[in-house]
């Protein structure tokens, strides 16, 4: 086996890896993040790693955000952040593999895992399923988690995310768009207190 040394010479600024299950929208979340970053004027790339269609199967999606054109199409091995849409994956999939030493973890869960305080990793825990059930009426944690990621890292702007969510969901009607933007904001706001605690 080989080890990915890191991307210093690749001019890629941020690499993010999403972990979810088929049907939870990990692929859409990655696409939305890339679209928002592109809206903000960055070069961006998003793509999935999955197999055939199957609800519930673990899957990964990758995003790169850069100030320079992104030429490589490899998977992300040393993410600067991972977004975990389904906390059950913590126990069954190598969701933290390759995460940079000071990397961000945006985790959809009611509480952080027992050992999380012990590491230098930056855990951002958001009850995104609960929030989305309240605001959207369904367990769709994507937009909440994107808000949390934006707040935690500052890599993508809230306005840009609002814009891409609005156009991505425009066919579902104004109510759905509005609710998702509320969910986005809720995720964003959920992180602010955690940030203050950390600093």
């Amino acid at each position, binding site marked *: 086996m080989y080890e990915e040394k890191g991307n210093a010479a690749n001019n890629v600024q941020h690499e993010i890896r999403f972990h979810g299950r088929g049907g939870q929208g990990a692929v859409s979340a990655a696409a939305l993040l890339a679209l928002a970053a592109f809206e903000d004027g960055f070069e961006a790339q998003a793509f999935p790693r999955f197999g055939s*269609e*199957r*609800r519930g199967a673990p899957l990964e999606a990758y995003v790169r955000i850069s100030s320079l054109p992104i030429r490589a199409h490899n998977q992300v091995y040393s993410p600067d952040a991972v977004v975990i849409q389904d906390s059950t994956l913590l126990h069954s999939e190598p969701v933290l593999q390759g995460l940079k030493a000071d990397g961000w973890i945006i985790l959809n869960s009611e509480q952080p895992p027992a050992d999380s305080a012990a590491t230098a990793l930056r855990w951002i825990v958001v009850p995104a399923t609960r929030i989305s059930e309240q605001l959207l009426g369904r367990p769709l944690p994507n937009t909440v988690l994107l808000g949390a990621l934006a707040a935690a890292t500052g890599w993508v702007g809230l306005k840009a995310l609002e814009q891409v969510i609005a156009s991505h969901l425009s066919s579902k009607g104004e109510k759905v768009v509005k609710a998702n933007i509320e969910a986005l904001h809720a995720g964003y706001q959920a992180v602010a207190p955690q940030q203050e605690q950390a600093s």
Partner: protein
Amino acid sequence: MDTRDAHRHNVLTSGHRACSGCGEAMAARMVTDLIGPEAIYVNATGCLQVFTTHNQQSAWQAPWIHSVFANAAAVASGVEAALRARGENTPVIVQAGDGGTFDIGLQCLSGMIERGHDVLFVCYDNEAYMNTGVQRSSSTPHAVRTTTTPPGRVSEGKHQLKKDLISIVAAHRMPYAATATVAYFPDLKAKVEKAMSIKGPRFLHVLSPCPLGWDHDAGLSVTVARLAVETGLFPLIEMEYGAVSGVVRLARQRPVEEYLKLQGRFKHLFTGKGGAEEVRHLQALADTNIRRYGLLDADTEWDTNEASQAQRHGRGSYAAPGKEGAS
């Protein structure tokens, strides 16, 4: 061999990767446990093949081979020829989805039947190419939303009707062809046992709902299958040597809306203007089936009420014939 349940062989055992509520997994478990592990299973490319043999793992506890998409019936023909040449009577069973039966697999299926191979071909029909992302097949019913027959400004979904495959198969004048579904296990059991008691080419067409592609709750697969039958959209029939030899009578006919409204793949028929016309078309198709096969007044052994009440009448456990009523 799995011995958790004395009546179940678990030919298809646990650990496979089907979606929750998968009608095909249900149907394949039913059919292969009724047949047992003393058989050779030839599988076409498709959902069943993918979710049972993912990446160096297998959920099969019987001899099993997968070649390519189109040729399962031809490969099975070869397996059968070899076994019979060696003087062995081992049953040969093909498992294919609607794609591997109605479309890309039709040529080899026809050849297998026409040449008279002693093979049972089972089609698990989820009415589209599900494994590749819900694209239409010729088995997809009229007006269904798939990714290659999307509703749009000038489209109401799939234009063509569901291909009447059982008639094409039966027109080969082969010994036995039947339709069945996961909602009526006693009926499916009787048909599998009948098929297994006959030599020559045999065919089973098993309607297998797909919560992902049909867009319904995973817990409703059996309900949806039952409604497909009770509306008349999926008649349960048997054909021998080209003629209808049996039908399951409908205890009552349900309107197609009851079936359509459970599934997101028909949702567009209830939002736009053109949808109502398509619902009328589907009702007409159901009514045609009922007339054609006499589904409301056939003089049959049992009807849809009986065919689903396995416990009460003792039919349709996995126990061997003769032990029925003992479960």
